[in-house]
């Protein structure tokens, strides 16, 4: 008897994947919390600063994020593709008696191919970061696309991001506190400041002359995810060395991040946060939480054998196509950028793995995608519509299709890997 089951359509699956990628940048495990109308994915970074337990009346579990990601990685959510995913069913069974405790993900692809993944999970009570909206009297919000552009300017190697408003301008500064000397000074990363007019913000009501410092890496991870859709990113905070909340939502998916800010280390505007405390805070800075709330929107699918009673399934209108990433619009403006890449020196070291791929590595090395396609069409004809159950699919994908076994003599493909060159007298 499953204790939780839900289904996702391909579009939601793609967004679930994006959310997992983002959460994966904060912690290696992801916690899942489900109630009858919400699915919440969240993660706490390893320092677990200021956690708070909650009454355990919901379903709660924790899963290794890489295991989840590898289930969805490389899947095509594009319905036009031959190998596209049609639906994803998730069932959680808990170990009463003979049933094993497993988080079971079934991915239903075209041509009746079914892939089942059974993941282990840890059942633990929820731990959430605390953020008090009441005391957060500073607020601003701006377009995710604008912020997405900004993070492009921050070079590698910096650690902190300082957000500061003064005289009608807001500046975002990425910098490092590491002090270098002598020849090392040239290795100092780029110090980048972006100053924009307050008019740039959809709304801005925050105290001026406050240095709010967070980690540049976390900001980049969040904005990279936010920038996938055209939405508004909202920031709320009270004072330096208190948490900052960044949130944004788009069509039923709400993402929230609670980041610890470092006390004012540079200016004198926040005397309460001394330098000593800021150092400690910088060592255990962050909490991240992303909660996603979605309604299952696959109308035509049959109900899973046992639907958990607490999951109400609403049928909604088909959603508009997922928004295009910003890179595409950039492509419109940077026509030469890609072209310039052909001038870059070839990195022979990287490519050279001892063996060289000639113009075609031969039939036996067809990419797994092609192979899968062949396998699928095969199973289609054999099993007609009954569907094929591929358990832990990957090992099966590479199995030889029977018709190809008729020829026992080793064939020499027209082109081959060097290591496979077979002299005529070698047999």
């Amino acid at each position: 008897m499953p204790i939780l089951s839900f289904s996702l359509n391909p579009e939601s699956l793609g967004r679930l994947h994006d959310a997992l990628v983002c959460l994966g940048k904060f912690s290696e495990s992801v916690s899942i919390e489900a109630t009858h109308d919400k699915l919440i994915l969240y993660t706490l970074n390893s320092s677990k600063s200021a956690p708070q337990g909650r009454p355990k009346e919901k379903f709660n579990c924790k899963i290794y994020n890489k295991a989840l990601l590898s289930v969805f990685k490389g899947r095509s959510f594009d319905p036009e593709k031959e190998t596209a995913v049609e639906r994803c069913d998730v069932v959680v069974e808990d170990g009463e008696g003979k049933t094993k405790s497993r988080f079971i993900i079934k991915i239903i692809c075209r041509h009746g191919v079914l892939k089942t993944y059974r993941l282990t999970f840890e059942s633990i009570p929820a731990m959430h970061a605390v953020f008090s909206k009441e005391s957060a009297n500073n607020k601003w919000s701006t377009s995710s696309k604008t912020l997405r552009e900004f993070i492009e300017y921050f070079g590698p190697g910096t650690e902190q991001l300082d957000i500061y408003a003064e005289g009608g301008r807001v500046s975002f500064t990425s910098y490092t506190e590491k002090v270098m000397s002598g020849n090392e000074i040239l290795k100092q990363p780029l110090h980048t400041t972006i100053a924009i007019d307050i008019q740039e913000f959809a709304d801005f009501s925050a105290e001026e002359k406050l240095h709010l410092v967070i980690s540049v890496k976390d900001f980049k991870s969040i904005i990279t995810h936010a920038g996938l859709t055209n939405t508004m990113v909202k920031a709320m905070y009270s004072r330096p060395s208190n948490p900052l909340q960044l949130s944004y939502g788009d069509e039923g998916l709400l993402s929230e991040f609670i980041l610890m800010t470092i006390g004012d280390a540079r200016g004198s505007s926040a005397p309460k946060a001394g330098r000593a405390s800021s150092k400690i805070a910088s060592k255990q800075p962050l909490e991240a939480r992303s909660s996603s709330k979605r309604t299952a929107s696959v109308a035509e699918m049959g109900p899973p054998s046992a639907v958990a009673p607490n999951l109400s399934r609403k049928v909604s209108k088909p959603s508009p196509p997922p928004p295009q990433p910003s890179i595409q619009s950039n492509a419109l403006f940077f026509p030469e950028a890609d072209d310039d890449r052909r001038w870059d020196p070839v990195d022979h070291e990287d490519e050279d793995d001892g063996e060289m791929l000639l113009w075609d590595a031969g039939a036996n090395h067809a990419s797994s995608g092609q192979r899968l396609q062949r396998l699928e069409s095969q199973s289609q004809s054999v099993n007609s519509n009954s569907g094929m159950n591929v358990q832990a699919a990957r090992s099966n994908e590479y199995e030889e299709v029977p018709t190809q076994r008729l020829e026992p003599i080793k064939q020499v493909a027209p082109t081959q890997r060097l290591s496979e060159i077979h002299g005529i007298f070698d047999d």
Partner: protein
Amino acid sequence: MRFKTSVRNINTFTKLTASLSSLGKVAWVRLDDDNVRFTIIPESGTQVWASLSIDSIFEDYTIQSAIENNTINLELPLPPLHRALKSAFNASSASIRLTKKDGVPVLSLTIITNTISGGNNATGFLSSANDDPFGENFREEHLDAGGRDREAIVTQDIPVRVLTPESVEGIHEPRVREPDAHVLLPSLVQLKAVSDRFTKLAMATGNGTTKSGAAVPKLELRANMHGSLKLSISTDALNIESVWTGLENPELDPGQVDDAVEEHPSSKLRAEGPDAWSTVRIDGRDWGRVLSVGRLGGRVIACFVNEHALILYVYLANYDESGEESVLTYYISSFSL
């Protein structure tokens, strides 16, 4: 000491730094009243001496120092400079000045750029998306161009070291004897593609010690004074060669040579006919990095000093006819057999 300028041509400057940074991470930059010079002397591999007219990349150029000709010598890391310039791609204007931040000298690049999407754009979309009377839920997007552009000021600080004149006194451009052959190179895209291919093939069919670097077969480059250039590589397993013909061997300027033109080594090689070649052997990977200068689109003359060195002169298009010429000089040593 003062240095402040606007960047006239961000694109060219970005391409220049991209090409230079493939050969070395740190450049010696000499700025003075007359020109801007970038010098890269890596521990091994090709040296570059790039001398640019001020007009080719800068305008409103101000320089002041206590040294003759208002010279300022800087040691400048190229990857951050390149990164900073790349962020100026969409800029409406960019300027550079030498300044100090927290006691550390920096080249501060100030970029005024238009953000593609103004902050208020998304609000319109969010409020209107759900009450589309036709129920089709078209995602409304704003035209990116037009009057909605908003300005952001981006400042990128690149750490630098200001060098004393004494510390750079001893650095001189290499002296090489008069070349035996000089030829205008064919399209660098083509030359780079063929060279990279040759090197890759030779590495793949080599004796398995390619990782060590020293055992990488050398590219052999040969030119005659009758418009031909040969590129070849050979290993135990293969021997490939590509030949370009109909190239131009530029005429010598009598003012530029010490002896009479007839006495010049290249005139002698020309007299020996099309089968007389001048040869150099170079490292294919290093050559690939050198050829990345092709992105600047200059005219490239290769001078062959037989069995000794290859010198490339890359002439950049001038901003105006009257200005001083911008030329990048690459010194590539030949390997002996």
